[in-house]
């Protein structure tokens, strides 16, 4: 098709005849918008960050920062994008640019356009308002986690933080603020092909499922935060890519008396904002899950769909006793998450099936926690992740569900630990005894992230930390 186009910095621009796997970053750069840079090509450094107009939660549109290196340009058909060049010019700097420039927020400047876009997204975030401030929030309500996916090798970050915390609020005449009051661009049916393959964005679930039925080789994508890495780093070139992130049927959000239903295509940011703390265990996961840039693209269905043994959500969702609704043209079925994973990056999901909804039963267990062991607090992959959901009444453990990630070929429940806890008094003696059981869960391996012995030790230590965590340690 030749009519694919998007709006870039206010100008409608034809996508043109480019290879189907062309990233948004390469496409922008080929058009002379070289502000966005490739620093890592896997969504870790944020040098490629740009703003896209997405349907908002608190305003019709929200400017959302995403990694342009991970998105195929075809996925932005019909959408609106702003780059650092579009936010301001040297003669008329945007407030974010002004603060960064005058405070020494740029040294080599290579990461700077990406920081500008991530910072601008937070500048425009509805609901950002003055607060007491702490070591991760400015008095202007700026959440430092908005910059968790941007790396700077020069400054040591302090002047960037000071710039972020010095920002005021968008004025009445701010064009980008005004745009947010208008509806976001709708998702459009897209079909693009080149000699390398095909990209299709169907507009109904049925059409998507029909495609998967006919083409078992199809690569399903939502935020592309995993597939983008496969394409950029590992040379993956799927013959057919099917985008499902904007399908209404996959975007339900419902909290009823008996359950929480989360559409598979909701991004982690959307879930975080919509849940607003109603599932405390997930509230602990979100700030530790990759970075804001990734959470703006990555979906809950995608995190489960990859079947990774070290995703951060599975241990939490295992502890929450979540189930998945799998849909295909053959119908729908419900699979408990505990039965979903079958091997390294393998699941019970058939090639023609999509994850439609994640269901978390209510009421929630009264005591929950999420522990992530990683080298770095922001934007890192866990060596070990543990989700806890315990029911303790009258000092006795009545029920326990513990999900583990990073200690086996699949995420798994810590069944021996759970059995050893249930019925026991919740005391230091119990916890120390059971910690030894927990340290033997799984079959952790040695790799560059951690040794197997550290991973095992962290399982046992985690239970101790969970116990003592309620105390002033």
């Amino acid at each position, binding site marked *: 098709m030749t009519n694919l186009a998007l709006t870039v910095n206010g100008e409608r621009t034809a996508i043109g005849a480019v*290879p189907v796997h062309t990233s948004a970053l390469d496409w922008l750069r080929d*058009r002379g*918008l*070289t*502000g966005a*840079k*490739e*620093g*890592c*090509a*896997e969504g870790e450094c944020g040098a490629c960050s740009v703003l896209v107009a997405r349907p908002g939660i608190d305003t019709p549109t929200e400017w959302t920062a995403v990694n342009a290196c991970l998105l195929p340009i075809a996925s932005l058909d019909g959408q609106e994008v702003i*780059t*650092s*060049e579009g*936010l301001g*010019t*040297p003669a008329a*700097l945007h407030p*974010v*640019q*002004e603060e*960064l*420039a*005058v405070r*020494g*927020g*740029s*040294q*080599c*400047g*290579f*990461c700077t356009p990406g920081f*500008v876009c991530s910072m601008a997204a937070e500048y425009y975030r509805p609901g950002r308002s003055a607060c007491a401030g702490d070591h991760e929030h400015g008095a202007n309500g700026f959440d430092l986690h908005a910059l*968790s996916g941007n*790396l700077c*090798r*020069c*400054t*040591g*970050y*302090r*002047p*960037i*933080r000071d710039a972020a915390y010095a920002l005021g609020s968008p004025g009445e005449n701010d064009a980008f603020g005004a745009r947010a009051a208008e509806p976001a661009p709708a998702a459009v049916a897209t079909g693009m092909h080149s000699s390398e393959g095909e990209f299709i964005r169907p507009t109904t679930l049925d059409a998507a499922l029909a495609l998967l039925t006919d083409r078992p080789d199809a690569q399903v994508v939502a935020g592309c935060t995993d597939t983008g890495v496969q394409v950029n780093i590992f*040379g993956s070139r799927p013959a057919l890519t099917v985008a499902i992130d904007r399908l209404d049927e996959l975007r339900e959000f419902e909290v009823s008396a008996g359950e929480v239903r989360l559409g598979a295509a909701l991004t982690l940011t959307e879930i975080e904002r919509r849940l607003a703390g109603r599932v405390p265990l997930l509230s602990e996961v979100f700030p530790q899950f990759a970075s804001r840039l990734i959470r703006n693209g990555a979906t809950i269905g995608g995190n489960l769909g990859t079947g990774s043994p070290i995703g951060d959500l599975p241990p939490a969702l295992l502890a929450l006793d979540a189930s998945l609704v799998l849909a295909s043209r053959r119908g729908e079925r419900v699979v408990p998450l505990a039965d979903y994973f079958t091997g390294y990056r393998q699941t019970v999901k058939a090639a023609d099936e999509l994850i439609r909804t994640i269901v978390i039963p209510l009421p929630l267990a009264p005591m929950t926690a999420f522990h992530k*062991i990683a*080298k*770095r*607090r922001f*934007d890192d*992959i866990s060596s070990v992740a543990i989700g806890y959901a315990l029911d303790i009444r009258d000092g006795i453990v009545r029920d326990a569900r513990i999900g583990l990630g990073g200690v086996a070929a699949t995420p798994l429940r810590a069944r021996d630990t759970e059995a050893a806890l249930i019925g026991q008094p919740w005391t230091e003696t119990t916890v120390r005894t059971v910690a030894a059981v927990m340290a033997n869960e799984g079959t952790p391996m040695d790799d*560059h992230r*951690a040794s197997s012995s*550290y991973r095992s*030790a962290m399982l046992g*230590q985690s239970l*101790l*930390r969970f116990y*003592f965590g309620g105390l002033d*340690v």
Partner: protein
Amino acid sequence: MSLLSERPAAAVVGVPMPHESAALHVTGNALYTDDLVQRTHGVLHAWPVQSPYAHARITALRVKPAYDVPGVVRVLTAEDVPGVNDAGIKHDEPLFPGEVMFHGHAICWVLGETLEAARLGALAVEVEYESLPSLVTVREAIEAESFQGIGRHLERGDVSAALAGAAHVFRGEFEFAGQEHFYLETHSALALVDEYGQIFIQSSTQHPSETQEIVAHVLGLSSHSVTVQCLRMGGGFGGKEMQPHGFAAIAALGATLTGRPVRLRLNRTQDMTMSGKRHGFHSSWTVGFDADGKLVALDATLTADGGWSLDLSEPVLARAMCHIDNAYEIPHVRVDGRIAKTNKTSQTAFRGFGGPQGMLVIEDILGRCAPLLGYDALELRRRNFYQPGDSTPYAQPVRHADRLESCWSQVLSGGEVAARQAEIAAFNASHDHVKRGLAMTPVKFGISFNLTAFNQAGALVHVYKDGSVLINHGGTEMGQGLHTKMLQVAATALGLPLSRVRLAPTRTDKVPNTSATAASSGADLNGAAVKNACEQIRERLAQVAAGRLGISPSDVRFADGVVRGLSGDGLPWNELVAAAYMQRVQLWAAGFYRTEGLHWDANAMRGEPFKYFAYGVAASEVEVDGFTGAYRLRRVDIVHDVGDSLSPLIDIGQIEGGFVQGAGWLTLEDLRWDESTGERRGRLATQAASTYKLPSFSEMPEVFNVQLLEKAHEDGAVYGSKAVGEPPLMLAFSVREALRHAAAAFGPAGTSVDLPSPATPEAVYWALQRARGGVSWSG
């Protein structure tokens, strides 16, 4: 006060100002080498064929299948090289190897109409290998006695006798890791060829003159046929001092053979697997203290892990040996240094250039020994400081040694260290599962290239008839703010507002035979050269002004764009320049500078290689989680000596950035090579941003106070300033020592903690577990 260091009233130097390109940075308008591709017509793209073995002989190379891939234009191999098949200055780095020396070594390069075509072409190239035995770790190299280059020996006093008479003697070993530069901009070059076959290369290089020389020798051309330009770099940190040359040469060779522009930009994986890093070191040592905790002798052997070729390993080793004393007087010293040859990337310059490695050894020794000697580590360090009148083991007087004490006492008071130590002791006494630690460490760092000849620089300053000024110098901009400082220097020297001065990109056809922008010396050397050029012009203009104003030339003053005598009316700069032109006065000048007073005997390891020392002190406080070993950097206080700052905002940025980068090296950044005997042996396992973690926002100190040492005029340098690029990196030793302090707090009083480097959460966890178990390092 020297003429070089004297600062006029109303100087533009010393005024805090943002980076000269800040408005371009933030709007995405600043251009980097690879941004030029889209502005260039008909560009070919390069992709390497990389070795899957750590060490192997190439027995067959078949490039023909690559030509069957649509869009492949040319495959570059050794047979295409018209000049010397070598990418370095030691002639031990073949550009196209017959024997691959490390996993990822580039064998040949494919040029394509698109990057995708080049990538697919590279996949199609067929290579046969005969695998050879490999050495991956420095210990393996030591065992196999696999060394390269010249080993060095540094000695003062009688170490054996001093150790025999010492009250306390400890012995230890310490092996510590290197560091990936991870400049955000990977290596890139764009080469064009003109009608004479001359080459013009845009290169992300810290050393354009050497890039020019290497390209010339590969192509068999003279240097005057090759021009290298560097607009700016997206970070360098030493990683672009030697390493860009081969990549530029590939692009230039491709352009020569095809007649088309050739772009070579490494992606992150290629950059990490192909380019050199900070040297990891192995050290073994014996140290002696007297009964008062004073160092009496140090006997050490340093082995730098050089990787597969020499590159800059020899000078890196020399600087490590010259910095093993850090800030401490050690009467008797013996240091042996050698360079291991291993099947890894060829390790290279990295901010500090061996200095950090030498200094880390003595700081580790003091950190380990303090509890065993019964001293608080702060006290042990302070009582060993150099005093005025002391000399280094290589016989250089330690000028301004008193600044160590000045910085130290300012950090003690400004950082409320005594009060916080008491708070920390109370906190630790009341918390079983989390402990805090505080440490202070000093930095003394020698400024100048160890190799005396490199301490020269040139500049070219034009004054146009309209009074506008264009400056050019031999230094490169990699984010350190050199160009900002040079604009300030020129404006100061000519008495002009900054807006009248513009800076043109670094090019080898403007200023020739430049030294690398390295060794923190960029502002010292190029600033003095710019100042020299400006002063030549000013002197000529003073003659003209004197005639117009009817005063003596020596009474003419240049300030704020007005030229005047000691009293009376002034003459606007523009008017004076126009008048000078009409009088046929030369309005441009080439400036030159050589650092005076340096001498160095590399064989004897004696002399005065450094113009001066830069000093600083940091105090860091950490909190360690006893369950996991994870930690937070709660507060950092720094007082650092930059002389009289040329540009305070820039200098504070260098201090903060250097500190965090140093903390990354020591705590987080974890280079892991596959040391197994499997088929991936020698492969870098952490070859991406997802696996190699550099500091992010979460590693920034929660409270970060940086002060410049006041009244710190440096008589020997431009406008009284000091170098700032490298020294602050080593202030981060305080973070590592604070972690050691916190880990020790999990054990009984007096526990000595043996802490690996990097001190990752896992490493800290095992260290605190040993402390908990009552295991103390005992030397």
